[in-house]
């Protein structure tokens, strides 16, 4: 992150904590509060996800932070200051705001869209231009697109621009209302991963609203599950939610497949992998056969001189004198050490295979993942009892 936000009337570059203090919202004419005495502390630099069924007040709760919805009772502190003491428009300029349908201004270019808040803050032209360029780089969007209009971009690109626009004045807090809700599932996953990488760089305090528990578990450092009537059901890390749901509502909301969901919290690198007998091109097959005896994985994996997997050797491959250079069986799926366990399992199932080579960042073999390891993990008491940290975030390079 550049330090240029410190030389003007920008929002605070430091992430700010957000504290809900019995924050309550009763809409005029409503019998019941939409949000009821919500107490949530969001640490600076963390992602807090509000999740729950429709009508649980999650969006209302989020919108109270920047006073898009006025608090009826209680208070919300941003960086220790009550939002009720701030003028709404000044407060909002210091809080990033991303909404589902992107809300990009169709009549303004991408560059102008990103420059919205800096213009409201009265930055000078050079500084705005530099900031726009920097942000387009940050969201890996070609700078040529700055002169295009939102309608000329894909949905995923528009969503990224929405995030860049919210980051423009380097706010201490970001509010994101179902930011990936309108994107197709494949792009959503990519955007989520990109966003987590981005967050590792910018370290904002983020309030994230979604109705999708899987997204909540993936994105949140902490997750607040709300039930109808705006009542907080549980506020905990994703792992805690999955292991110790506070009540039947949370258990039900998290879903019967919560053991499976826990796989989303784990990376392949987090568990003990198996070792496959390795074979090299031109090696005598007799040696490979010896290695195969009593090996954890009953197949030999052919690797090149860099230890990058080439494929599995079949019985037919081993019938000859020397190990052939073209193995019978493709090594796919090759799993990355940093992959989330759930994705790795899905890869295995998709390829209808028992084993997948696991590689490190240099694509060198690191071990073998098997369906058996995963099922053992799911069944083990250790899996349920042991305190699991939330999925470790990829760190900024």
């Amino acid at each position: 992150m550049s330090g240029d936000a410190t030389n003007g009337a920008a929002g605070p570059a430091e992430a700010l904590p957000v504290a809900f203090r019995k924050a309550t919202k009763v809409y005029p004419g409503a019998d019941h509060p939409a949000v009821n005495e919500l107490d949530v502390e969001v640490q600076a630099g963390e992602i807090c996800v509000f999740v729950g069924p429709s009508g649980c007040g999650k969006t209302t709760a989020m919108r109270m932070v920047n006073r898009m919805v006025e608090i009826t009772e209680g208070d919300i502190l941003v960086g220790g200051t009550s939002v009720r003491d701030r003028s709404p428009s000044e407060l909002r300029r210091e809080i990033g705001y991303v909404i589902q349908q992107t809300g990009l201004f169709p009549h303004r270019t991408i560059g102008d869209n990103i420059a919205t808040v800096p213009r409201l803050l009265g930055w000078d032209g050079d500084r705005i231009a530099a900031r726009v360029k920097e942000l387009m780089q940050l969201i890996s969007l070609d700078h040529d697109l700055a002169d295009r209009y939102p309608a000329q971009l894909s949905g995923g690109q528009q969503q990224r621009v929405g995030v860049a626009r919210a980051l423009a004045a380097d706010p201490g807090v970001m509010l994101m209302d179902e930011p990936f809700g309108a994107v197709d599932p494949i792009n959503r996953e990519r955007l989520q991963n990109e966003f987590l990488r981005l967050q590792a760089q910018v370290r904002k305090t983020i309030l994230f609203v979604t109705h999708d528990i899987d997204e909540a578990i993936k994105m949140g450092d902490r997750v607040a599950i709300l039930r109808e009537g705006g009542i907080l059901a549980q506020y905990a890390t994703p792992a805690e939610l999955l292991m110790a749901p506070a009540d039947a509502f949370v258990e039900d909301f998290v879903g019967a497949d919560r053991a499976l969901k826990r796989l989303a919290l784990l990376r392949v690198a987090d568990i003990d992998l198996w070792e496959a007998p390795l074979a090299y091109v031109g090696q005598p097959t007799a040696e490979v056969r010896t290695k195969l005896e009593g090996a954890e994985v009953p197949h030999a994996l052919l690797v090149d001189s860099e230890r990058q997997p080439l494929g599995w050797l079949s019985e037919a491959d081993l019938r000859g004198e020397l190990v052939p250079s073209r193995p019978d069986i493709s090594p796919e799926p090759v799993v990355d050490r940093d992959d989330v366990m759930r994705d790795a399992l899905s890869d295995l199932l998709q390829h209808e295979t028992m084993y997948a080579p696991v590689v490190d960042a240099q694509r060198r073999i690191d071990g073998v993942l098997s369906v058996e390891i995963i099922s053992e993990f799911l069944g083990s008491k250790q899996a349920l009892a042991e305190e699991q940290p939330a999925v470790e975030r990829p760190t900024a390079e």
Partner: protein
Amino acid sequence: MIPLAASSPEAADAANRCAPGLPESFCHQHEVTGCVGGNGLFCFDWAADNFDRYVGPFLRHLEIVAISVVAGFVIALGLALLSHRHRALVPPVLGATGILYTIPSIAFFFLLLPITGFGLATAVIPLSAYTLQIIYRNTIAGLANVPAEAKDAGRGMGMTERQLLWRVELPLATPEVVAGLRIAIVSTVAIATLAFLAGAGGLGQVLYEQLDFKTNIIMVGVLTIGMALVLDLIVVLAQRSVMPWRRAAR
């Protein structure tokens, strides 16, 4: 009217006599024979020779249209912005402008004659009143059609209501506003041909002075339609250059 198509010298002579109330200068140009005397469909030579007489009324017509549309636009836009802030004003304003719109123009002129007298004002007041309904309705619709998420994003990023109006709502409502403006211009060009009844002149004056001469009728028609088309084209081109995002959206 005395038919211009002369079949006998007497009839031709009669045709050469001026219609009551018309200036002499218009009458003695009628020849007994040829295109003009025979009141042909369009006498090109005559039109070319007499083009001058249309220039003044044409410019006057343009002036009436311009003043009426600009005045109507300013008033309608002002009313629209006011009722955008205070929604309760929408039905009464729509009703009032609707009533104005239904007053027949000739009646409107004669109602005003005792107050504003014979002249430009008496023509311009009804004509601009007619544009109000069209422009007001379109502006209100345009503002209502601004995507809710664009407004939400604008407010959420800290725009004041005024900033939101000028930076987001009005630009996004412009296509509808311009659509209304175009209808207003074209219909005003047409109705302004009656402005001479209020004593404001314009192309209607020339038309009325030789209502039985086909070439004259066609000249006035072509000039009126041409004015409407050119003004419309100017607005369309202006809109395109102001709103490049509209084409990008396609």
